[in-house]
Each structure stands twice: as structure tokens, then as C-alpha cells.
């Protein structure tokens, strides 16, 4: 035995909580700097228009206004960068200027800023800016945008196509379809979602004219990346002259990964005015110009045999990217979606074609799950439609097509890295057992005889997380413009207290707890002696940030590398202190002992004291226990599971009642079960919400209809059933912990489970498919139509 495991695997209470529970957390808008001025942004009310002129004179004269800037003033700031282009194909790149000066391309495009003594004055002065717009025709639908005659957004992107990307074997797939006994086709819309982190985004810029240094506080999931992008691409200042700080961040769900105009604008304004400048978007702005998610129109076809074996999958997707490319937008519908469409199934031939399309809408980028929810929805809906076509139970069709446990690592045929490990049938069986699936089928039959519409839906998913090996994801592979390793530094101070700094940047995930659990066990110290620091580029090693369920699998691995280095050095020093030979010193029960004489022992704090004082060190050893690691994973990780949803649909109104929700997830080994359960709950809530309620809607001329929480239906406590969770554990060999990742699994799994359940409920009426969200009216209309035509048939 080498390690005394005390904390890992147990539901340790979160160390983050006491601060948040008392309202003493420090989020961006809680920060006040001396002399701080306030910025407000004027956004375009038009979806597409030419700017003929902007008159800022009245605003400039408004008492309390310090400055008004337009695109002319910010001409020296470069457009925001796109850091992840679709790999292996040409991308017609168009990214936004921080302020538009000649043309606006969506409602929310920024055209001017006011900086004033206080937010009230800044807001009032926005009303005094006069912009002369010449409205132009707009297009919001990604499919229509590619058609002849559609309004064009960018000169370099004919038919508004940013890129055409493919994966898989087209020839083999076409052949599979020619030879198929059964082919099922369906157009699927994966609707636009608005991430809606509780905390809106914002930034504070502070320029120090003495040193020429910028400090930028930001609501970011990736402050190091922001520092790099702002320095090297946007502001053209040396990277060592920018410090980015993410304080406490109130949720992100992807929308806070990206580089936004306001980050550059507060830095610019601060330099111009010689004062710190704060900008916090309001909820209307958040809805208009912070990134949205999903928005695919897909034509899917599945081929198979009458006995329920899938032989081919063909997919053509129009992915709406919005008016410009956000920071990693093209990578989402390609690498993270296109390469995951086969899901948990062994499909002999798959071909995927993705068109990335510009439209006059807010930029679309990663939103919780990022590509994998769209992939899971596609394959799980298609498998259900296929099961219905061949007249088999959807559970049985899934079982027949799963990648079997002995065939890992598994190559899915569309260029994803090999799936690491999986026991798909085990998770399915557990979910069926827990949900009482066979009993529900009997109950359903009885209910159908009474005219009641009960349904059950399954979703057997696999997702890719723990992204990613740099050599695979990078420029010569998947097009990501950097690496995707992660970093950590672990120091044990003279008094035995440990500080962990990480390049990841949590915003609700509980890293300070999970990472401290890892380190406390590895160093044999109490958890309260370990603190985790993150979010400040000055004082943490460069890291790529928190998204893609990667922080534990990649960031946690970097921490373990550092603790391993500390243990190795400590062992040498322990041997020196114990006057034993190094080979005889072993790690036991959280301390070093001499083999055969357990009474001679040294703990890490004792060794840290010796290392820090440096009075007596072995020949050549440097003082202090302080180790940094950069960990590049050998593969991604592939969590999986099966979710089961049971619903009842009200025939009279089309309303769906969620009756039960059972989730069996396999996220590999678990460090803190309590935190993982919370991540799964949250993921499921968001996934259910896509199926049932959420939809970002633009009018045809590009006005955002769902521009507030009065219109965009976020799930409320009263709208959800209880969730019944269970886990199977199939460790991964990709990292030392055997952990896969849990941040997005729930979202990825839940959406198709709910939709499949509603479609199952409506099956007796002959309804095959309805697009999300399954709003009551849509369901009611479908029931009406089918009831009418069934009457006619009789």
C-alpha cells in the first residue's frame, strides 16, 4: 500500500460554500476600485444595417460623461480572434470588431460606448447618441441563409457559408444505404439556446501608466487564454504587460469561455482616461450579445436491417454560427459534434457533412455539452425512429448495436480519438431495472387502452471530455489554435500548509474542494491545510481554463504530477533526515517510514520545514517543496450512461408532465460523489429544459423575441420532477485517477430521453417526430392533426 486514502471518494463538504452562503463571495460586480468609471455600450437595434453616421455630441456634453467612443476611436484595436477553425478545411473567417463602424450584422452588435462617473449617467447618455442606420435585409435561419438570393453577411463567405467540413467514409456509407433493408430519414432541428448564466458578463480594465501594465478583471472561464488573445491578437501589447483575473464567477456554461469586445474596450478606455473602467452587461445585453448555443438544422438518415442492426448513418447539418465567428465556434459543430454522431453504437459506415453558416443573429459557440448534446440528440432520436420502423423495443435495438465492452479502445469511424472504455449494456440494464421499465410498459399498455398518453424514453449516450491531447486537437489536426494541456503548481510552505495553483478556472464546479481532496491524500495532510488558487494569471501557471469537463481529468492530472514530484523529492529528504538509504524509505499511511522500523517516520510538513529552512539538505538538493507540472493527456475520456424519462401527455392541451426521471451515469472513478451528483442534477435540468421549454427565437427580420427571462423559459423549481441517480463505474486508463468527467454528461443525456418519451407517448396517434421544445401547442396541434386524419381513415 502506498497511499492512505482519506478524502478521495468521499462527499467532503465544499470549502467554497461558507463564503457564498453568507454573501461574501467576490464576483466581478462586487469589485470597486478607487476612481473607477463606468462604461455602457450602445448596441444595434437592427439585425443588418449600414452605419451612415454616428453623432455623439449630445452624449459627450451630458454632465458626468467622461468619454464617448465609436469604431473610429477604436480602429487601432484588432478584430477579436477565432482560435478554433474547423480542422482540415478552408474557413472563411469573419470576426467582430470591438465596435462596428460601417455595418452591423445582428441585434446587439456594439456601435459605441459611453464612459461616465456612474452607471446611471452612462446609461442616460446612451439615449443621446444618434446613429443613422440604413437597414439592410437580414437572414436568421441557417438553411435559408445558404440558398440563392439570401441576404449576404460577408464578402468572403459566398452563400454565407463559413466552411464545409466532412467526416467518415462517404462511399461506404452510400453503399450501406443502397443495400439497406430499412432506411429511416428525419429532419431534426436542434434549437438555439441562450446560456443565461445567473451572473451576467462584465470586465474591469485598469491601466497603470507608470509600468504600462493592464489588469483586467473578467467573468471568464479561461483567463490565461484571454490574456494571450488580448495581448497577441487584439490589443497588441506584450503578453507580460497584461494580467487577467477571474474572481468568483457566477456560472458560465460555456458562454464565459470566449473573448468579448468589452474586455478590450475597458482596457482601452482605462488607458485613454487614466482611470479604472467597469462594464457589467445587463440581462437584455446578455441575451442579445453574449454567445448562444446549439442551433442546428440536420437531415439525418439511418440504415439498418429488419432485425434491428444499424448498418449506416448519413448526416447533413447546417450549423448556425451567428453573425461572426466567436472564439471557438467552428470547432463545436465539427470536432465535438461531427466526430461524435455514432454515439455508443458500432456503426459500420458513417458520413457527416457540416456547413457552418453566418446569419444575422448573436454568435453561437459552446454551450454546456458543446456539440455532444447535438450529436447525442441526433443519434438517440434516430435509433428510436429506427426501432419503431423495425417494430422492436428501443432498449433491445440499443443493446444489439452497442460497442461491446471487449472492443475498447473503439474507433468510431468519423475521426474521434478512440473511446477509452465502456460498459454500455451494464448502464442500460441498471437504468431499466431502476426505472421499472418492463412494469412501465405494461402500465402504458393499460393506460393506452383508456386513451391516456404515457411514454417512456431512453437515451444511451457517450460523450467526449477531458479535452484534449494537444497534438490531436491542435492546428495540424482538429484546428485548435494552441495546446490543450493543463498545468498545476503545488507548494508546501515552511509551516506545512500547501497551496495549489491551477490553470483551470472554476465557476461553480467545486474545484477548490475536489483538488484539495486529491492533494491532501497525496501529501498526507488535513484538507484544511490545502488551499487551491485559480483565476489570476499572475500567480497561477498558464492553463487553458475550465470547460469541456476537462478540469479534473486534465487539470487534476497536472496536480497529481506535481504532488508526485513533491513526494519524490520529499522521499529523498526524508531518507536524509532519517539517515536511511532512499530505497528503504516508503510512503505509508500518509508519511514516510523506514522499511522495518515504522517508528522512524517523517510527515510532509516535517519535511517541508526542513526543505524550507535549508539547514540540512542532501548534496545538490534545492530548498523548498515547490513543483510545477504541465500535463498533456494521451487521450480524451468518454463518459457514458443511460437515462430513462417517463411522461404523460395531456390530450386536451398537449401539456407534458414529467412523471419520473432515472439516470445511470458512468463518469469513471469519482473523487467527490456529492459534487458529481450536483453536476449531474444541473446537467439534467438544462437538458430537460431544452427538450421542454427553452428556445431562443428571432423574427425573420432578426429581432430577438426571447430577449428576457419573461420570454425565455428557464426551468424553475416547480417545473421539475425528482431525479433518481445511480452510477456504474468503469475507470479510464487515460489518467491516473481513472476519472472521466461529469460536468456535461447530464445535459448531453437528458434531452433525447425526454423527447423520446414524449414521442413514445404520442406513438399510438402515429406521430413520429416533433422538434424541440415540446411546447404544449406544438404537441396539441400534432394530436389534433392525427386525430382528424385517423377519423378520416376510419
Amino acid at each position, binding site marked *: 500500500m502506498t497511499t492512505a486514502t482519506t478524502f478521495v471518494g468521499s462527499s467532503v463538504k465544499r470549502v467554497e460554500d461558507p463564503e457564498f452562503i453568507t454573501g461574501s463571495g467576490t464576483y466581478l460586480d462586487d469589485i470597486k476600485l478607487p476612481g473607477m468609471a463606468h462604461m455602457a455600450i450602445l448596441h444595434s437595434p437592427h439585425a443588418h444595417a449600414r452605419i451612415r453616421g454616428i453623432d455623439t455630441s449630445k452624449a459627450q456634453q451630458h454632465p458626468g460623461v467622461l468619454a464617448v467612443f465609436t469604431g473610429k476611436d477604436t480602429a487601432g484595436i484588432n478584430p477579436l480572434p477565432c482560435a478554433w477553425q474547423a480542422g482540415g478545411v478552408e474557413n472563411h473567417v469573419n470576426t467582430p470588431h470591438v465596435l462596428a463602424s460601417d455595418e452591423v450584422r445582428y441585434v446587439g452588435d456594439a456601435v459605441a460606448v459611453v464612459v461616465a462617473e456612474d452607471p446611471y449617467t452612462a446609461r442616460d447618455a446612451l439615449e443621446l447618441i444618434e446613429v443613422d442606420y440604413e437597414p439592410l435585409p437580414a437572414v436568421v435561419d441557417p438553411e435559408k441563409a445558404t440558398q440563392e438570393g439570401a441576404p449576404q453577411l460577408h464578402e468572403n463567405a459566398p452563400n454565407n457559408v463559413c466552411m464545409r467540413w466532412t467526416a467518415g467514409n462517404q462511399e461506404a456509407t452510400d453503399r450501406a444505404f443502397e443495400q439497406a433493408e430499412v432506411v429511416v430519414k428525419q429532419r431534426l432541428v436542434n434549437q438555439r439556446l441562450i446560456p443565461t448564466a445567473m451572473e451576467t458578463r462584465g470586465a474591469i480594465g485598469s491601466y497603470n501608466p507608470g509600468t504600462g501594465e493592464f489588469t483586467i478583471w473578467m467573468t471568464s472561464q479561461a483567463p490565461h487564454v484571454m490574456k494571450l488573445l488580448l495581448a497577441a491578437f487584439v490589443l497588441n501589447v506584450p503578453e507580460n504587460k497584461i494580467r487577467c483575473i477571474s474572481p468568483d464567477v457566477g456560472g458560465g456554461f460555456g458562454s464565459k469561455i470566449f473573448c468579448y469586445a468589452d474586455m478590450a474596450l475597458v482596457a482601452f478606455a482605462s488607458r485613454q482616461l487614466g482611470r479604472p473602467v467597469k462594464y457589467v452587461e445587463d440581462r437584455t445585453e446578455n441575451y442579445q450579445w453574449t454567445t448562444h448555443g446549439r442551433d442546428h438544422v440536420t437531415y439525418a438518415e439511418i440504415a439498418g436491417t429488419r432485425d434491428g442492426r444499424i448498418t449506416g448513418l448519413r448526416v447533413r447539418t447546417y450549423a448556425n454560427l451567428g453573425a461572426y465567428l466567436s472564439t471557438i465556434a467552428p470547432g463545436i459543430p465539427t470536432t465535438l459534434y461531427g466526430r461524435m454522431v455514432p454515439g455508443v453504437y458500432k456503426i459500420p459506415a458513417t458520413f457527416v457533412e457540416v456547413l457552418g453558416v453566418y446569419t444575422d443573429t448573436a454568435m453561437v459557440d459552446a454551450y454546456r455539452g458543446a456539440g455532444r448534446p447535438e450529436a447525442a440528440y441526433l443519434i438517440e432520436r434516430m435509433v428510436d425512429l429506427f426501432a419503431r420502423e423495425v417494430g422492436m423495443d428501443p432498449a433491445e435495438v440499443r443493446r444489439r448495436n452497442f460497442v461491446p465492452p471487449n472492443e475498447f479502445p473503439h474507433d468510431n469511424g468519423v475521426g474521434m480519438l478512440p473511446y477509452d472504455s465502456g460498459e454500455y449494456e451494464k448502464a442500460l440494464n441498471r437504468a431499466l431495472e431502476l426505472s421499472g421499465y418492463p412494469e412501465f410498459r405494461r402500465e402504458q399498455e393499460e393506460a393506452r387502452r383508456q386513451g391516456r398518453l404515457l411514454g417512456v424514453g431512453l437515451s444511451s449516450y457517450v460523450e467526449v471530455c477531458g479535452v484534449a491531447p494537444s497534438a490531436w486537437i491542435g492546428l495540424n489536426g482538429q484546428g485548435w489554435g494552441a495546446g490543450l494541456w493543463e498545468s498545476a503548481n503545488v507548494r508546501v510552505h515552511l509551516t506545512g500548509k500547501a497551496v495549489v495553483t491551477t490553470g483551470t478556472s472554476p465557476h461553480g464546479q467545486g474545484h477548490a474542494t475536489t483538488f484539495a481532496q486529491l492533494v491532501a491524500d497525496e501529501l498526507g495532510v488535513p484538507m484544511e491545510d490545502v488551499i487551491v488558487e485559480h483565476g489570476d494569471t499572475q500567480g497561477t501557471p498558464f492553463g487553458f481554463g475550465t470547460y469541456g469537463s476537462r478540469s479534473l481529468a486534465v487539470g487534476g492530472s497536472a496536480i497529481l504530477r506535481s504532488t508526485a514530484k513533491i513526494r519524490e523529492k520529499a522521499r529523498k529528504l526524508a531518507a536524509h533526515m532519517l539517515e536511511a538509504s532512499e530505497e528503504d524509505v516508503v510512503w505509508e499511511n500518509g508519511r514516510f517510514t523506514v522499511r522495518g522500523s515504522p517508528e522512524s517516520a517523517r510527515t510532509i510538513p516535517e519535511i517541508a520545514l526542513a526543505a524550507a529552512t535549508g539547514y540540512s539538505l542532501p548534496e545538490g538538493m534545492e530548498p523548498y517543496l515547490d513543483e510545477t507540472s504541465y500535463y498533456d493527456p494521451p487521450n480524451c475520456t468518454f463518459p457514458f450512461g443511460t437515462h430513462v424519462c417517463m411522461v404523460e401527455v395531456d390530450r386536451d392541451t398537449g401539456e407534458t408532465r414529467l412523471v419520473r426521471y432515472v439516470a445511470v451515469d458512468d463518469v469513471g472513478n469519482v473523487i467527490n460523489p456529492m459534487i458529481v451528483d450536483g453536476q449531474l442534477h444541473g446537467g439534467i435540468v438544462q437538458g430537460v429544459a431544452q427538450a421542454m421549454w427553452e428556445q431562443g427565437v428571432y423574427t425573420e427580420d432578426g429581432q430577438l423575441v426571447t430577449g*428576457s427571462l419573461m420570454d425565455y423559459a428557464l426551468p424553475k423549481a416547480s417545473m421539475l420532477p425528482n431525479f433518481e441517480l445511480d452510477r456504474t463505474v468503469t475507470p479510464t486508463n487515460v489518467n491516473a485517477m481513472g476519472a472521466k468527467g461529469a460536468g456535461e454528461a447530464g445535459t448531453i443525456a437528458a434531452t433525447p430521453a425526454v423527447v423520446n418519451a414524449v414521442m413514445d407517448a404520442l406513438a399510438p396517434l402515429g406521430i413520429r417526430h416533433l422538434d424541440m421544445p415540446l411546447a404544449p401547442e406544438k404537441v396539441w396541434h400534432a394530436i389534433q392533426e392525427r386525430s382528424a386524419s385517423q377519423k378520416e381513415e376510419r
Partner: protein
Amino acid sequence: MATRETSKVPVNLDINGEQYDVLVEPRRTLLDCLREDLGLTGTKRVCDVGNCGACTVIADGRTGYSCLMLAVESEGLKITTIEGLAGEDGLHPVQQAFIQEDALQCGFCTPGQVLSVVSLLERNSDPSDEEIRLAVSGNLCRCGAYPKIFRAARTAAQIMSSK
């Protein structure tokens, strides 16, 4: 640079048992006054139009939206914010229960959730599951911590009744 002339009015506020005299514009909301004038930043701004519960305070024993209450309207009310819950003997039972049951993730909606549960338990020491659900139905949590928030409310009720 000229400073804007505004007609500010004096207001006396009773927050967490302390008296504050502030000079505010009539259009200043209680939320802005708490956060900007009094430095009580535990009350959070999310939707800012009375539809999410993040800015919840307790006013005369009842929860309310501080983003819709004007500071001038709030004179005479006994207002409790998240900062006023913990006493000398430590955290309020609802706060304890939220930690125990892991009822928060990013923490941004948490002050509002906690105050809604506090207000519920002040009037109903043994709420049913449905009453708990309805009591926090105005408090959005994008992290989706709802199942654990329900559990925390039940646990808090137990802690409070055992005292």
C-alpha cells in the same frame, strides 16, 4: 468635467438591524442602494426586473424583489439581507443546511434561495415538499441545484425544530 446635478433625497433605511442614512436619487432601487451605497454586495443582480429571485431580501418578514423596490419606498421597512442572517453563534440553520446538502454551485442565486427558505420556515416550521417547491419557485438556479435546495430546506426545518 461637470458633475451631473440630480435631486437626491435623504432616506433612512433599517438593514439587518442597523440604521443607515443615505442620499439617493428617487430612481435608485433598493438593490443598487444596498450594493453601491452600503457595500452590501451579497444581494445579487440577475434579471433586474423581478423575475428571477436573485435580489431577494426580507422586508417586514416577507421576501421581496429589491430590484423593484425603490430605496425611497423602503424607508420604514425592517430589511434583512443575506449579510444579516448569521449571528454571533454562527451560521443560520438554513445556511448550515445549504452547506450540508450541497445546495449551491456557483453561489450567485444562493443568497436569494437562502432568504426564500428562511422566510418560508419562519411562517411554516414543517413545510411539505410541495410547499418548499413553491416557496423557491421564484428563485432561478441555472446550475440546477434544485433537488439539493429542496433537501436543504427539509434539513433546515429539522435543525430548527430540534432547537
